[in-house]
């Protein structure tokens, strides 16, 4: 089997080789759709180069996982067959095929909307006898949706069949259902997804924080005595650097003040349009799109076109403020940052952070009244971010009490102990000579107040100053930062 049947030139990795089946998958319409789904949502409106697509990222992830397995094979002498490598490369290639337009922002709104209407009192009763094995939830997350696309898309089925790739084998790797598989390659703190994403984002956004030595890290991929994917000790510094870089990437890009403002507006508008029934993203509707070959049309531009239609729709005009919120996305005039608190503190101070968030939220009604700006245009954004989080959420402060499942997400470094018939690995975060070990008790705490303001820029600036004056007077001891 050759993984150089065709090649694609990529600014991040150089020449990327592809096998015959990968070339076929890339040509399917559901994969071509990824050209029109941006990896970073609306971030390109702030970082103009950051408009790269999930297509480029998916091809990059396929390349990275291939390099990881090659390194693993070289470093361990494991007899990994090309057919098995092919399954992992395909799983990486297809890992984002189920992403909605604008990715996570819309997925969260869809999840919240359909769980509310399907399961809470007062919503529509869902009488279907669905089970989690054969049935469907009210809406899909991107992973389950990806699985449904792989199962139901006729073009993908044809390509897999032509190249003798078993669909069930691919699904087992894609869904991480095989207990014997090396799932850390496609789902862990240092998987092919993150390894591609960080470099690619740094390259396109022009922010150097994610420019880490990925080639070296990948070349050190190996297995410990329990067959856990890990990295040789020589990669410790580079892996430590990568996790620190990930932290700065978050602060610089997803947490950028205007990127956050645009995402707030996007989510709010989409939430309202779901409520109005302006768009149907239920699992039934999405599955229909897949089966009728219409999923390919459901991309970022489709949603923007929908917003353009909605802005003049009488139904939309009846919802307080919605038209202005849609315009704020279309015209790139998002809510303005009024005040902010950003600090790095001990993780045990999290309650203080929550208290500060509550303090701001409690004041919104009165500030809206005092300034005459509709309450619907006020937003409090808050995030806490641990340098040492595992995956998306799990904090590491309770490290000693992590289950094997949770630990499996951590970056592991191969140790030197050769007793007991093999070499064990240790989570990077437990290595005393790493930065993330010494920072494991610290977290970033951010709180921001945004308000969607109207009028000319000088008028907005004057309103912003007026609001700031009121807030600083009412909350003199609040830990605001200078903007």
């Amino acid at each position: 089997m050759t993984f150089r049947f065709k090649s694609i030139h990529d600014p991040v990795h150089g020449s990327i080789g592809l096998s015959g089946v990968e070339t076929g998958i890339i040509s399917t319409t559901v994969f071509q759709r990824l050209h029109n789904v941006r990896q970073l949502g609306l971030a390109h409106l702030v970082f103009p180069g950051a408009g790269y697509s999930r297509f480029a990222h998916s091809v990059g992830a396929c390349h990275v996982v291939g390099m990881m397995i090659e390194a693993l094979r070289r470093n361990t002498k494991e007899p990994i067959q090309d057919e098995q490598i092919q399954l992992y490369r395909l799983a990486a290639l297809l890992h984002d095929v189920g992403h909605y337009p604008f990715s996570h922002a819309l997925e969260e709104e869809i999840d919240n909307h359909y769980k509310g209407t399907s399961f809470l009192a007062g919503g529509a009763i869902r009488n279907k006898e669905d089970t989690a094995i054969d049935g469907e939830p009210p809406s899909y997350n991107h992973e389950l949706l990806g699985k449904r696309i792989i199962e139901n898309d006729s073009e993908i089925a044809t390509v897999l069949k032509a190249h003798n790739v078993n669909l069930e084998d691919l699904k087992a790797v894609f869904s991480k259902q095989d207990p014997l598989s090396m799932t850390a390659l496609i789902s862990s703190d240092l998987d092919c997804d993150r390894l591609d994403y960080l470099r690619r984002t740094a390259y396109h956004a022009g922010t150097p924080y994610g420019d880490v030595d990925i080639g070296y890290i990948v070349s050190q991929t190996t297995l410990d005595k329990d067959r856990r994917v890990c990295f040789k000790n020589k990669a410790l510094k580079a892996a430590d650097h990568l996790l620190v870089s990930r932290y700065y990437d978050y602060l610089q890009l997803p947490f950028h003040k205007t990127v956050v403002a645009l995402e707030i507006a996007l989510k709010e508008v989409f939430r309202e349009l779901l409520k109005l029934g302006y768009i149907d993203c239920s699992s039934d509707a999405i599955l229909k799109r897949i089966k009728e070959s219409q999923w390919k049309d459901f991309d970022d531009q489709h949603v923007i076109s929908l917003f353009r239609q909605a802005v003049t729709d009488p139904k939309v005009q009846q919802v307080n403020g919605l038209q202005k919120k849609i315009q704020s996305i279309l015209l790139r005039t998002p809510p303005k940052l009024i005040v902010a608190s950003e600090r790095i503190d001990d993780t045990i101070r999290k309650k203080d952070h929550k208290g500060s968030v509550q303090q701001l939220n409690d004041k919104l009604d009165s500030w809206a009244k005092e300034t005459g700006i509709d309450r619907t245009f006020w937003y409090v954004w808050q995030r806490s971010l641990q340098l040492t989080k595992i995956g998306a959420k799990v904090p590491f402060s309770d490290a000693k009490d992590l289950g094997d499942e949770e630990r499996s997400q951590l970056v592991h470094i191969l140790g030197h102990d050769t007793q007991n018939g093999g070499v064990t690995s240790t989570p990077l975060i437990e290595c005393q000579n790493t930065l993330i070990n010494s920072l494991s008790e610290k977290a970033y705490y951010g709180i921001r107040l945004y308000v969607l303001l109207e009028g000319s820029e000088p008028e907005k600036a004057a309103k912003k100053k007026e609001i700031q004056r009121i807030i600083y007077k009412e909350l003199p001891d609040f830990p605001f930062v200078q903007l």
Partner: protein
Amino acid sequence: METRLIVLKLFLDELGQDSSIASMKDRKRIQKAMYFGNLAVDLGYRYSWYLMGPYSTNLTRDYYDLSEALETDKIDKSLNDNVKAKLAQIKPLLTPPRGVDGVDWLETVASVHYLQKVSRLSEADARARFKQSKPQLDQYYDAGVQALRKFKLI
């Protein structure tokens, strides 16, 4: 609080499960109890196989978010009657037989179910895989199979 977290909290309440995630045992209890809650009413969580049996990374994300949200937010909503009725049907399965630790029981029944219905192993292969990966729970295997059959889940 986000609706997905409200729904998760109400599901746990309905299944008689505390939402505390302070210890690994608590988190394992929630993972396995929600495995059956999700079987009764599909919330969209999907499980992978790990040493301790079926485990959902999306559920992990949600119960950490829930734990944080519960520090400040209150819930004034309830599940609809249809959902409540389905969860009430599955709830007795979560009660362990006398003398069996509650979390051990949940791990047993969830693992047996996963191996037979999701991994689609034959009865003999599922038994062998279970014994190999969970020798400490093997004594409960037969009781687990019996209970799952009673609830028509295998």
